[in-house]
C-alpha cells in the first residue's frame, strides 16, 4: 500500500504534541486527529484506520479504556494500537492489549521508524521501541 493511502487515527489532547506528530508524519501518512477517547471509538468504526496512536491521558475515556474496547471488539481488534504517551506505564499499556509503547518525547526519526515498523512488519507486534 502507498504510504499516503495509509490512515493513522491519533488521539492526542496536547496541541504541541499534535503539532509534533503532524510535522513528522504528515508527509508520509494520512492523519486524522481527535482529542478525546469517545471520539476515537466512533471514528475507528467510521473510517477504519490502518493504525491508531494514543496518548494514555485522554479526556472523557482514557487511552487504556479506549484500547481495551478496541481490542475487545472483533471489528477493530486487528488494528494496531500504539501508545505514544507521557505516562511511564508500559505494563498497563500492555495489559490493555496495545501493540506498542513509546515514552514521550522522542526524536522525529525514531518516532517515524517506530510507526512504520508496525505498518510494514506486522510480525514485529509486541516490540516496544
Amino acid at each position, binding site marked *: 500500500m502507498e504510504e499516503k493511502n495509509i490512515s493513522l487515527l491519533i488521539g492526542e489532547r496536547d496541541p*504541541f504534541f499534535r503539532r509534533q506528530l503532524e510535522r513528522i508524519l504528515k508527509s508520509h501518512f494520512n492523519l486524522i486527529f481527535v482529542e478525546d477517547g469517545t471520539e476515537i471509538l466512533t471514528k475507528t468504526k467510521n473510517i477504519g484506520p490502518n493504525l491508531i496512536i494514543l496518548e*494514555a*491521558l485522554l479526556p472523557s475515556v*482514557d487511552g487504556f479504556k479506549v484500547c481495551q474496547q478496541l481490542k475487545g471488539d472483533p471489528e477493530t481488534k486487528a488494528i494496531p494500537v500504539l501508545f505514544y504517551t*507521557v*505516562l511511564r506505564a508500559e505494563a*498497563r499499556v500492555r495489559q490493555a492489549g496495545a501493540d506498542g509503547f513509546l515514552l*514521550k518525547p522522542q526524536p522525529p526519526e525514531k518516532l517515524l521508524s517506530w510507526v512504520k515498523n508496525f505498518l510494514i512488519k506486522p510480525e514485529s507486534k509486541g516490540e516496544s521501541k
Partner: protein
Amino acid sequence: MTERITLGVPNLDQILGGGLPAYSLVLISGNPGSGKTILSNQIVYQLATPERRGLIITTVSEPLSRLLRYTQEFKFFDPNKVGESIIYEDIGPHLLGANGENAWDKIEELILKNQPAFLVIDSIRAIHDLSVSPAVTRRGFFRLASLLSTLPCTAFLIGEYDGDEYAPTVEASIADVILHLEYRPVGLGSRRIIKVLKVRGSDFLAGEHTFKINSDGITVFPRFTTPAKPLVYKPVTQRALVGIPGFDDVLFPGGILRGTTTLVAGDPGVGKTVTALHFLLNGGRQGEAGVYVSFQEDPNQFATIANNFGYDLEKMIRDKQLILLYNSPVEIDIDEMALKIIAAIQNIQAKRLVVDSLSDLASGARGDPDRFYNFVYAFVQWLKDRTVTAMLTNEMGQLFANELTLTGRGVSHIADNLLLLRYTELEGEIRRALTILACRGSDHSKKVYEYLISEKEGPRLGSPLSSAFTLFRPTTIQE
C-alpha cells in the same frame, strides 16, 4: 470539631495543628521552583482512591506533559492511579482562547463531572494573568468557592506568589488554609521553607519550618519549639553516675541530677569528647541506653576510641543500648537533626544523650543566633521533660586566652551544669585542668583539678591545683 485529614507528607500534619481540616480550600503559594506542585501531587497521590478521586487541573503555567514527566520521578507517583483514582485535565486551551470566563465554566464542569474528593488547580495565578479583568477573576473565584462549599471536596489552589504577593489576592481571602513555600539562598547553599499562614478556626505551628525534597517527595522538619503549654516539672532527686573516677564523689557528689544538661566547654583536644563518651558508655554499663550524636568522629573512629578504653561498642549497639548518630557538619539543619535525635532516643528508650559538638550543631541554624538559642532552649526542655541526662560539648576558640568565651551564643545559661576543661602549664608541662563553673540546684566542688587521661584507663580526676592559675582567673568571662 471538624474532621481532620492526614496528608501523608511527613510532619506536615504537625505544623497544621494535627492534619488538614476536611473540605478546606487550601492556597499553596510560593516562588517558582519552591515545591508547590510536588506538595499538592504528593498529597493527592497519597490520598486518592477510585472511590475518593483526585482531579488535577492544569492551566498554562506548565504543560501537562511536562508536569507529568517530572512528577513520575517521585516514588509517590503510581501510574496505575492515573485515570482510575486521579484524573488529569488541562484547561489551557480554554484560557488561551477566551477571556477567562470560559475557564471558570470549564473548571465548574470538570468538578461536577468528576465529583473529586481532592482537587488541585495548578496554577491559579495563570487564570489571573489571562483574565480580561479583575472582576472576571473575582466572580470566578466566588463561583468556585461557592461550588466547593456544597461538595465533600478538599481543594488545593497553586499560586506562584513571591513573598507577600499572595496577601491581597482574592484566593487568599477565600482560602481556609494558606501554606507558603520558599526556596531561599543561604550562603553557598539554600534552604527550603514552609510556613502555615492561616488555618481557619484552628491553631497551628507558626513560623518557618524547613523542608526537603528528595525522591520520596517532601519531608517537613517542624521548627523545634517548646510546647505552648508549660511543662509540669517534677522535682528530680535521682542522680546519674558519670562513672569517671572522681566525678561522682568529688565533683558531683552522688552523680549528676537526672534530666539535667551539662555543657562541657573547653579548648580543642582537651578531652571533651572523651569525657562525654565515658559518661554515655558508663551509662550503658549500668543498663542505661544512650545516644551519641557526633559531627566529627565517624562510627569507625568512634569505635576505635571506645575499644581502646575497653568498651564493646558492637555489643552495646546490638543490645540496643547505644545509637551512634553520625552526621556530617556540612549543610545540616537543626530541626532535621532534632527529629533524628528524638527518633533515636525513642527507639532505644535512651536515658543519656551526648551532642558532640554544639558548635557543629549551631551551623545548622544557618547564621541565625536567635533561632539557635531558641532551639537549644526547647531541646533542653524536651530532654528535661523525659528525664534524659545530657552532655553537650562545645569548643572554645581561644587557646590559652585570658578571655573565656563559653559558647558565644548565649546557650551556657540554658545548661544546668557547666564544666570547663582547659590546658594549663604546670612544672614545665602542658596539663589538663577542670572545674565546675555552675551546677543548678545541686552542690558541687568549687576547686580546680588536674584532669588526667590515660590511653587505656580513660579519664580520671587528679588532685586540686592549688597554685595561682591565670587560666581560671580570666580577665573577662563572656557568654
